[in-house]
Structures are given as C-alpha cells and as structure tokens.
C-alpha cells in the first residue's frame, strides 16, 4: 500500500484492512456517518450491526477471546461512546485486546456542548489502556496503527481512538503500518534468567508444589498453553487455574485440580493453602482468589510470572518475581530445568498427591439430582455430557450460573471459555456469544445464562436472527438474582431485598417474536431430549431451563476468610469431610 492522499474516513477503513481486520462490530450515528459511507463502498471488512453499543464491545470481546486477535468496535459520539464504556471497562479488567473507534463532533465544536458531544477521551481515560483524540487527518492513520500496537502488546487491553467528523471528511496523507512511527511502548517479554533459575531450583526440592495459572497463559497464545502442558507433564506438579485461565491446561488431564477461588474446588483451594511452592503463571492474586490476604497460602514460597510489573507484589508479596511473557518465560524455565537434570522431589510429590487424593474424595461438586425439579448443577452436567465430544465455545453471563458453568463444564483447549471475570458484567454473555459465532461460523456456541443477566442485553436477539447466528442461549431460570439471593440468605438475615425477577417474559414467545426458536424445559426427565433439540436446531435458540429456585452455589469461601475455611454444600455430609474437619453451614 503506497502512502497516498485520502479522506480520514477512507483512512479508517484502509488502516483496518492493513491491520488484517475482517469484522467490525458497530452502530452508526451522526458523527461516524463518513466512515459508514466508506464501509458501504467496500467488501473486505464485514460490519455487524448490533442493537446497543455495549453489546458491540462485548461481541468484539467474544471475537477477540475466541481467536486471539483484536476485536474492533465502531460507534458514534456522545451516547454511542458512553454506552460502550461498560464493555471497555470489562475488556480492561480481563485484559482483552479491543480497538474502539468513536466519532466525535467536529474539532471546532468540541467544548461547546454540541449535539451528541461527550468528553469521550476524558470519560474513557481510566477504562482504556490508552486513548487518543485525533485532531489532524495527517495523524489519523499513524494513530490507528499505534492503537493496534498498544492494544495487542504487553498486557493486552482496550484502546480508543476518538475521531472528530471534520477529521473524517478532510483529506490527508495515509501512512501504511510499516511506515508508521510506533511509540516507545515495548513491554519486556523475556524474563530475568537468574530468577528463572532460582525458580527451577525451587521446583527441584519442593515437596508440595502447585501451578496457579490465569488468563495470562491464554493471552500469551498457543505456545504458552503448549509449554504449560509440557511443563506440567514433565514435573508431575498439580495445576489449578483462575476463572480466566480455564482451558490452558486440559480439564481431562490427571494433574488438573479444577478452578480455585471463592467458588473453586475443595482440592484446588486446600492445595493452594497447603503448598510449599506456588508458581503463579499469568494470574493476579485477585481478591476472589486470595480470600483473606494475611492467611493466604501461609507456608509457601511464591513465584509470579506476569508481563505487567504492576501486578507483581500488588496484593501478595512474592519471593520470585519474573516480569515477562508466559511463553518466553516457560520456554526458558523448561530449558533450564531440563538442563539441570529434570529433578523433582519424588518422595515429597508422592505424599502430596496422596494428600490431594483425600481432598478429591470429598467430591465437593456432588449434588443430589431431584426427580421433579431440575437442579442447575444437573442441567450443566447434562449439557457437558451431551456436548463433551464437540469443539464447543462457552460464554456466560455473571452470577451463580457462571460459577456452576466453571465447575461443571470442562475445557480441554484455550480460547473456548468467554466470561466476564474482573468486572463481573451481567449482560456480557449473549453479545459475547454473537462475537464468537461470527468468528467461528460453524462452531457450537453456547451462552450459559441466568434469566436476569440475559435480559440485560436481550435486544441482541435482533442481531442473532439478522445474521442467522445459531447461538444457543442456555438460560438457567430460577426467577431470582441467584448470587444476590445467596448472599442475602447467608449474610443478610434472609431478607431478599429486590433479588427476585418478577414479570419475566415468556422466553419461548420472546424467541419466536424475534424469529428464533424457543424451548422450555422444567422436568428432569425431558432435559436430555430438550438439550439435544437445542443442539440440533440450525439457528438461534433460547432455552428456558426452569431450575430449582433456592439452590446455593458451593463450595464457597466467604470473603475475608482463608482458603481452608470453605463452606461445602451437600458433599458436607460425607465422612471424608468430617474427618478433614471441614466446615458446614
């Protein structure tokens, strides 16, 4: 592509093409009309019209998380930009690469309270990795290329480029990516070899080691997940993961302990509490993970590999901080550990696994299926059983159903699990599933939802039917804000303040009103057939699964408590628990 003159609006489309973008999620409006006019006149970039700007960002997140490539959003000024803020913040918290392009009122009107004017760069400054207001058409293409560079380098995140309408109309010189002056921003990817060697030494002697992996492994890419699997197999150490990291290590692997954290598995949390060497790979010691910081894994030496220096020693002090990209660090770690003779503390490890096996026997996810009513855990167990052999992509909304999905669905590959972890955005899942399906047109994409979360972005039924996206909306309908209700039951005197969903729609009719298929199921005996009907239907499906209304999500570590003080559900009646001295409500 030669550097030549063109309008700002054409530059936007050209820059997207040169960055390899094939899909843009957006919604038009006055301040982006010149760009939409350019989109109309070409066929390389597909534009997906969502029904709300928040959904555009979540769809772009779904696209990005399921492909590893940046998601692109195009919205107008003012309300277009402010509606996108929740999605942008969500992407920031979960480190998802997103490039958001917003229209802005003409430069000479900025500051005049013009129609649909908002201080977009001001509003989004704290919720983007970086943002730009472009006031000169000559600077536009260079800024767009830099935006892609910043969004995808180091710890990924959302960026925003605000483009006034006169800048879109004016003509300037286009700069191709290879000629663009990219800023000094180049995060460190190679870890400190001395510290990596110290970690290798610690791995040789540790009696109770554990890998604690996070979303950073998935963000680092396929090489990182491959190296993680190799390292786990070579050392025989157990591995647990945060909500964000599910799929980096396969759930079918025998070293897999399951998810850790507030609603994590008993064996994963107790292993974190009792370990003597914790190897954190791309996780950030989030408060849903650590519980009470002062009692977090009290007897372990800790290593922390993270590409973001500000993640290290933020909440938990570590003895072995390693700043770098997971794939680079794991490659060095494996090489060093192998060259030193592939040593592990075999006797210690054997005892450690024996201990872990006693925790596993607690079977903390066990539940008693009811005969007349569908338990949410049962619904997800059946969904898992009926889709296990397919390469499926799972999105979720936020709440109890999200935790149950993380517990009962099993992920053997990365980029198959899209959930709002950091921000906890209800309404994330449905638009996210649309983004995933756009990226993988032939794949099975399921959004595990609660009825309350799902309603927050249900307008996207229009998008799903318009583009004939066969997304499966699997709604666990308990007519409650289940997680809020759970906290109110346990901690607020069973005063259920505004946590029930009254005046719910008929989800089957709602689906049909949008031209989609609706299925309702309330009888456990019908469940398998109903799920199969959903899977077999070639088109969007809303599955209204009426479940037990008062089920609580266990295991659970109440905030402010350490890992070894868990509340267990029905598993607590088993003998293993009493012997272990565990905790019952």
């Amino acid at each position: 592509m030669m550097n030549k003159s063109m309008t700002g609006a054409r530059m936007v489309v050209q820059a997207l093409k040169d960055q390899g973008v094939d899909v843009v999620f957006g919604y038009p409006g006055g301040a982006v009309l010149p760009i939409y006019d350019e989109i109309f006149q070409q066929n390389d970039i597909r534009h997906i019209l969502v029904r709300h700007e928040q959904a555009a960002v979540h769809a772009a997140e779904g696209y990005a998380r399921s492909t590893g490539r940046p998601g692109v959003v195009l919205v107008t000024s003012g309300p277009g930009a402010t509606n996108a803020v929740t999605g942008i913040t969500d992407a920031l918290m979960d480190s998802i690469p997103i490039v958001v392009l917003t229209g802005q009122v003409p430069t000479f009107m900025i500051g005049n309270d013009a129609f649909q004017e908002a201080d977009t760069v001001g509003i989004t400054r704290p919720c983007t990795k970086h943002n730009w207001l472009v006031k000169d058409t000559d600077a536009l293409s260079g800024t767009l290329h830099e935006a892609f560079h910043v969004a995808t380098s180091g710890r990924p995140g959302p960026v925003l480029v605000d483009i006034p309408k006169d800048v879109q109309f004016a003509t300037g010189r286009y700069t191709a990516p290879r000629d663009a002056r990219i800023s000094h921003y180049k995060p460190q990817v190679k870890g400190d070899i001395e510290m990596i060697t110290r970690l290798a030494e610690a791995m040789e002697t540790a009696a109770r080691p554990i890998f604690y992996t996070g979303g950073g492994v998935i963000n680092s890419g396929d090489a990182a997940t491959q190296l993680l699997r190799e390292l786990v197999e070579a050392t025989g150490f157990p591995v647990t993961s945060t909500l964000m990291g599910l799929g980096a290590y396969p759930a079918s692997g025998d070293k897999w302990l399951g998810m850790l954290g507030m609603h994590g598995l008993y064996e994963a949390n107790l292993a974190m509490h009792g370990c003597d060497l914790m190897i954190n790979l791309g996780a950030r010691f989030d408060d849903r993970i650590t519980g009470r910081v002062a009692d977090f894994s009290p007897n372990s030496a800790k290593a922390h590999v993270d590409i973001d220096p500000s993640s290290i020693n933020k909440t938990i002090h570590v003895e072995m901080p390693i700043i770098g990209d997971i794939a680079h660090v794991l490659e060095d770690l494996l090489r060093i550990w192998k060259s030193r003779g592939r040593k592990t503390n075999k006797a210690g490890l054997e005892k450690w696994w024996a201990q872990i096996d006693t925790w596993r026997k607690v079977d903390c996810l066990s539940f008693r299926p009811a005969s007349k009513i569908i338990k949410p855990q049962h619904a997800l167990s059946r969904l898992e059983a009926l889709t296990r052999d397919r390469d499926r992509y799972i999105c979720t909304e936020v709440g109890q159903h999200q935790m149950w999905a993380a517990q009962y669905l099993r992920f053997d590959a990365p980029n198959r699990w899209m959930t709002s972890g950091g921000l906890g955005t209800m309404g994330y899942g449905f638009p996210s599933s649309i983004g995933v399906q756009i990226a993988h047109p032939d794949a099975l994409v399921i959004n595990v939802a609660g009825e309350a979360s799902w309603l927050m972005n249900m307008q996207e039924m229009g998008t799903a039917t318009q583009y004939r996206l066969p997304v499966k909306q699997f709604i666990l309908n308990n007519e409650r804000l289940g997680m809020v209700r759970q906290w109110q039951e346990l901690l607020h005197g069973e005063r259920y303040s505004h946590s029930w969903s009254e005046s719910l729609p008929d989800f089957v009719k709602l689906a049909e009103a949008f031209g989609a298929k609706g299925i309702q199921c309330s009888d456990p005996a019908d469940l398998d057939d109903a799920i199969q009907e959903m899977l077999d239907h070639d088109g969007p499906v809303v599955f209204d699964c009426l479940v037990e209304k008062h089920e609580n999500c266990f295991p659970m570590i109440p905030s402010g408590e350490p890992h070894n003080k868990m509340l267990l559900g029905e598993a607590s009646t088993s003998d293993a628990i009493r012997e272990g001295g565990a905790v019952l409500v």
Partner: protein
Amino acid sequence: MATLKIKKGTSRHSAYDLRDPNLDLSETHTLAVLVDNEAGVLARVIGLFSGRGYNIESLTVAEVDHTGHLSRITIVTTGTPAVIEQIKAQLGRIVPVHEVHDLTVEGPSVERELALFKVGGTGDKRIEALRLAEIFRANVVDSTLESFVFEMTGTSEKIDAFAELMRPLGLAEVARTGVAALARGV
C-alpha cells in the same frame, strides 16, 4: 483445620474484606516522571493517583525537552513501601510515560521549591518582615508603602518555616510552585 462458624444473618462477612491491611507507617517519596508532552498526559497521571487512592503532596510539570516533546513531572507522594512500589509500577505502564525515577531511593538528590509571599503591614511589623526576609535570603520583588511581595527558593521545610514567621507579621497570600528535584552528580 479450624472450623468456620457462620451464622445466618450476620453481616461480619461482607462481599469484600473491609479491613485495611496497610495500617503501618507510610513514607514520603519524590518521583521524577518523564512523559511525552501530549494532550491529557497530566490527566492520566493525576487520574491514576485519584482513581487508585494514592496521595499527592506536591506536583509540578513543565516541558523540559522541546525537540523531543518531553515533559518532566515531579511528584511528592506518601504511602507504605508497598504502595510506593505499586505507584511506580502503575506510572510505568502508562503508555506515554518514558521513565520513572524514585529520587528518594536512587541516591542523594536536591529538591527546591519557589514561593511568593505577600505580606501587608506598616511600622515595626513591616521592618521585622523585611529583616526576616534577609535572614531567609528572600528577595523583594514588589513593594508598596503597605506591602511586600517576597520571592524565595528553598526546600519545602524552609518555605513552611518562613510562612510560619510571616503569619503574625501580616501574611496575606502565598503562591508555591511545588517541588522540582534532580539527582545529585551525573
């Protein structure tokens, strides 16, 4: 393993841990931050401090390299050692930030602040103010029959001390620039 007795209906367990783990003593550090001189960069730095609950005791900013479009921000902040480390790491990941230096730990440094004091008064008080200004090596940069404006450069402590002395002598207004600081030597 200890048991957890959780009674239904108690609110001791919040959705967040409400205890502040950082109750130990805090320290004062002077940070020098080299940034691209572009629109909004100061807002990014200030927004970081307000958004994450860090303290700013003093902040100065001006372009120091016109051709390289670089500005230098000098920030005096307080926090526990862990918070100070976190502030530096957070500053370092702002995209237009080039360098972050903690002058308090990187070796000896000099810190100076410039201040202007308007002191009104006549008779003995006026004479006393002028006498103290000489002791403090403050310059008179404006004078009327009933007032002086003194200009003084020094450490923040010296400026505090001078302001304290001027207060009973008719101190009307003070303008301070905040701290500018450089490491000693090359």
